């Protein structure tokens, strides 16, 4: 690498900081490491190709172990969602999540639930509806708490939300 990040240039956010001694060899090695790490993560969680030199069977086993761990984490964050798939939860989640990079258990579960709206049982549908009542989530950015909302909840009642918190579920007298 040549002195692309030479004196006077401001390193961009997240870029590799140049070495004080200006050693191009060290920077080059660091950039190669960054690229190799990125390729490995892509292979493990984003359906990228197996980088050369790695054992494809072992990477496959690691990738499946990651999916299984994710399924367990999502089940803790979205218990009704996982329960609605019973013993097939792990398999169903893994099939959906394969090739989708993890976005944290909360959003992973949310995205999965939205993609399976028709398959949710009443408890899971209620869990999703309560989350959607409390938070504004466009499917991309971080969910944001709603300041105030009234939302009809499947299974009965209207949720009253203030500052992202569920205050009460009003039940209509039957």
């Amino acid at each position, binding site marked *: 690498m040549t002195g692309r990040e030479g004196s006077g240039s401001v390193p961009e956010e997240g870029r590799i900081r140049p070495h004080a001694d200006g050693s191009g060899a060290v920077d080059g*090695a*660091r950039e190669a490491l*960054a690229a190799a790490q990125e390729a*490995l*993560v892509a292979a493990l969680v984003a359906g990228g190709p197996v980088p050369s*030199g790695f054992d494809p069977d072992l990477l496959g086993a*690691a990738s499946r172990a990651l999916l299984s761990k994710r399924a367990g984490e999502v089940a*803790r964050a979205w218990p009704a969602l996982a329960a609605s798939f019973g013993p097939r939860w792990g398999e169903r989640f893994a099939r959906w999540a394969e090739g989708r*990079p993890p976005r944290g258990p909360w959003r992973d579960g949310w995205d999965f639930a939205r993609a399976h709206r028709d398959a949710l049982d009443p408890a899971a549908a209620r869990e999703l509806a309560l989350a959607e009542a409390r938070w504004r989530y466009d499917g991309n950015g971080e969910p944001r708490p709603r300041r105030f909302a009234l939302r009809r909840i499947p299974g009965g009642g209207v949720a009253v939300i203030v500052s992202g918190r569920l205050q009460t579920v009003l039940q209509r007298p039957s």
Partner: protein
Amino acid sequence: MTEVLAQCGVGIGWRPEIAGFVAGLPGLRFTEVIAESVHPGHPPRLLAELRDRGVRVVPHGVRLSLGGAEPVAPERVARLAAVAETLDAPLVSEHVAFVRAGGLEAGHLLPVPRTRAALEALTDNIRRTCAELPVPLALEPIAALFDWPDAEYTEAEFLTELLERTDVHLLLDVANVYANARNRGQDPLDLLDRLPLERIAYCHVAGGRRHEGLYHDTHTDPVPAEVLDLVRELSARRRPPALLLERDGRYPPAAELRAELDAVAAAAGLPAIT
């Protein structure tokens, strides 16, 4: 090195699901909490109560990505430091691993290549981190199902060099040593005999299970006899100041968890805490 957890004996990782069980252990002198799960200003009440009664609490970071080629994020380090202050921690721990690259989160601890470039990156990140921490740092080598190609060091050489350069403590996970050796057809004692055991601040012990011919360090299964044997072998060489049982889900009944803690204590030649 000074023993930051001297005489702390056997402990168990603090998790919300077993907070009552942990609080009820009469001989407990130390515990560990996932650092990212603690709000710096508002630690969970039951954890704060343990701290207030003198139980040492070690924040265990899992998201710093010290082994990443990118510089460690200053805000993550600052948060870890704040959690350490809040919990009055004697030290904090993290991993020899990376968890993200190029904007992609792996969602798990991934191994770094045993190369000079990775050693330099780790060293830089550990130094940046230690400069901001109010307490010492211990580093944990991870369990990995696969290896990077073109290693320039053995695992023992790599870890020894890293610990010497950065002068941090070692958090030795005995189950990781077992898992890595078993999955590679190696003898776990070979690694124990080549590591700087005097740098151990404390040890992890955890359960796992065999699946598709590989041993998976799950933290959701019982501790196998082979891991307890390795605790025995380690303690015969140099008894660690403290050992911590990690359990992260599928929690067994309290009696089973107590029996597991007793088994760890017996293997290490330490008093039971139950």
